[in-house]
């Protein structure tokens, strides 16, 4: 029906543009929220479908059975302003077919899909609209009409599609649900009898969950590197915060301190009814021996400092500088995460500046004799007369990336005593003519 026809029938109609990308994004968020029912939750990957898949095997009893789970889910979605129809069946295909128009119980009995689907229209099998129209033309209107049709004929006429959908719905072929996010190996979950909203309640809930998670990790000899806290709110939305640590940690007090700054971001809205802590990244952490000297306390203090800096500034802003095997000055240093081991390499033995400019600054230099240091140069609008200079140090790119001409570095001292690292790129008499740069300052 066109918009004009629809408005003629009902003048007060509210119109909204179709935005499939936004719909898909909403579905993804809903799928994440549904992970409070089961870790295996996903948005429908079929291009014509806008649905959610939940693999509730072994989860339904936590909510009082399948029907109770559906009531719970439907109620939450309605509260969030969404209308939905849902069904539970042995196979995803059967549940999809039963959900839109099934009469009676939304839960099909085990192995009941063959009888239940028989009277449903062909479109219930998740087929392309063109395929459905062709089947109608052949007189096949209900799913049950397909039961007696020979497979070979179906495959010859429609390819694998129709037979596969039928087999998936009836359970002759498996159709796994791949969750939107892989369920973490270590996680804890708590559902609250009453929705909570006060900051102190949230902090207490997180503290208790952290203790349980810490126990799980300790049993496996693991520590956390990344932790995610997800709060499921009553209006079918969720909020999550994540923290990282510089080295494996499982002490609840340490983690709680790192989380404390971000906990207000877990805006409870109308109330949080469930909460989950997931260890997104773990690393081995042997069991601790407590109570031996102050050494462990000190390194703990240091790790705590690095974690709190890293969570506030980003872990890429905290580093140690390690030597790297290269003669090129800018490649002789590599930043490492603070907890990483330092490579067993020595620092360069030649004189090196205390500050190296990330980008060498061009200078105008007067060097009357080729292959000798300049007698004068102009840098940042000041002229420096060179009084002393060391012999040149020639540094070339590694042969496998030889792109820039070699550089001759000079340590020079001007008449006021300031010391600089100048280099000449290129050789005299060559084309293009050599250029001078200032690359760093010495102590």
């Amino acid at each position, binding site marked *: 029906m066109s918009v004009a026809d629809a408005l003629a029938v009902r003048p007060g109609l509210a119109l909204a543009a179709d935005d499939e990308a936004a719909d898909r994004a909403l579905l993804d968020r809903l799928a994440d929220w549904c992970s409070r029912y089961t870790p295996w939750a996903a948005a429908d990957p079929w291009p014509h479908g806008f649905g959610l898949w939940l693999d509730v095997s072994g989860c339904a009893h936590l909510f009082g059975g399948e029907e109770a789970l559906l009531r719970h889910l439907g109620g939450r979605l309605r509260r969030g302003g969404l209308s939905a129809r849902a069904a539970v069946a042995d196979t995803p295909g059967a549940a999809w077919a039963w959900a839109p128009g099934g009469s009676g119980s939304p839960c099909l009995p085990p192995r009941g899909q063959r009888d239940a689907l028989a009277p449903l229209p062909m479109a219930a099998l998740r087929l392309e609209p063109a395929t459905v129209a062709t089947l109608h033309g052949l007189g096949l209107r209900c799913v049950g009409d397909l039961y007696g049709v020979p497979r070979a004929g179906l495959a010859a006429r429609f390819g694998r599609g129709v037979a596969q959908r039928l087999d998936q719905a009836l359970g002759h072929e498996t159709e796994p649900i791949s969750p939107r996010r892989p369920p973490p190996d270590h996680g804890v979950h708590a559902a609250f009898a009453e929705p909570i909203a006060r900051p102190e309640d949230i902090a207490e809930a997180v503290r208790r969950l952290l203790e349980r998670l810490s126990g799980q990790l300790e049993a496996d000899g693991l520590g956390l590197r990344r932790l995610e806290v997800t709060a499921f709110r009553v209006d079918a939305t969720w909020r999550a915060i994540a923290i990282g640590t510089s080295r494996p940690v499982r002490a609840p007090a340490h983690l709680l301190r790192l989380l404390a700054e971000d906990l207000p971001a877990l805006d409870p809205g109308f109330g949080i009814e469930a909460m989950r802590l997931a260890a997104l990244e773990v690393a081995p952490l042997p069991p601790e021996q407590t109570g031996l000297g102050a050494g462990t306390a000190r390194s703990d203090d240091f790790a*705590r400092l690095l974690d709190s800096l890293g969570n506030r500034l980003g872990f890429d802003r905290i580093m140690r500088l390690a030597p790297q095997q290269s003669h090129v000055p800018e490649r002789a240093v590599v930043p490492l995460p603070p907890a990483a081991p330092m490579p067993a390499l020595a620092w360069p033995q030649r004189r090196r500046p205390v500050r190296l400019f990330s980008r060498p600054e061009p200078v105008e230099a007067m060097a009357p004799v080729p292959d000798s240091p300049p007698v004068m140069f102009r840098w940042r609008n000041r002229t420096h007369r060179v009084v002393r200079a060391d012999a040149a140090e020639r540094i070339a790119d590694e042969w496998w990336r030889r792109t820039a001409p070699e550089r001759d570095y000079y340590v020079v001292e001007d008449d006021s005593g300031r010391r600089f690292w100048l280099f000449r790129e290129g050789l005299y008499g060559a084309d293009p003519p050599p250029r001078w740069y200032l690359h760093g300052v010495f102590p």
Partner: protein
Amino acid sequence: MSSPAELSRLRARIVALEGVGADAVPGAVALGLPELDAALPWGGLALGCLHEVTVAGSGSGPGSGPADGAATAFSAVLLGRLAAGAGKPALWISRGDMPYAPGLAALGLSPERLVMVQPHRAAQCLWVLEEGLRCRALAGVLAEVRDVDLTAARRLQLAARASGVPAVLLNHGPSGGTAVTRWGVESSPSRGDPALGVGRWCWHVELLRCRGRGVDDQGRVAAWEVEWDEQARGLRLAAPAADRAIAPGRLRAAG
């Protein structure tokens, strides 16, 4: 009325009130140069205090801030002494270009012990500095700053006092805080024959301010010409500046 004994008693009282007397600081790390250590009332660089290093003299033109090697190097030497003395890690906070690690290693500040922090904003610099000062596992914190107001400096001083962790403020901007010591550093021509190239790193170091010590008529506590001894990895006093005139014997030999 104002007898010397009375004056010194009053001075001692002020020092006690300021909380920077020899018995009020949690300790000190000797700089390894007796002349410098003797000028400081604690026999070295006091722990649990703020120390400020600025660019002295004419070197502090606009734009020369972080590009001044002497002040950076002297701060690195101070931090290196603190880290080596305590055997603990140190923090270097800088928003711009990082100092060059091989150069720091040559100045006795081992990069293995050093954690670099690069905050995005100036306000975060002070936050990181304060967090660092509250962490007893650190030997010291160095921050490159441009502007520290009195309130912030006071907060930092209290944090340092509580933990005993010292801070070195490498100040690229106008000086003016409540640091316990303030040093002015500028490059000085290296000693030795110019024909032999650039000699040892040489700095003109001025102790501009030190709690518990008065200043002389030039507005400083003391001043030295200091050299960095690369072999011994330590500070030493430089020989008096050489006379630039060529010695007669050399002149004859050359002629």
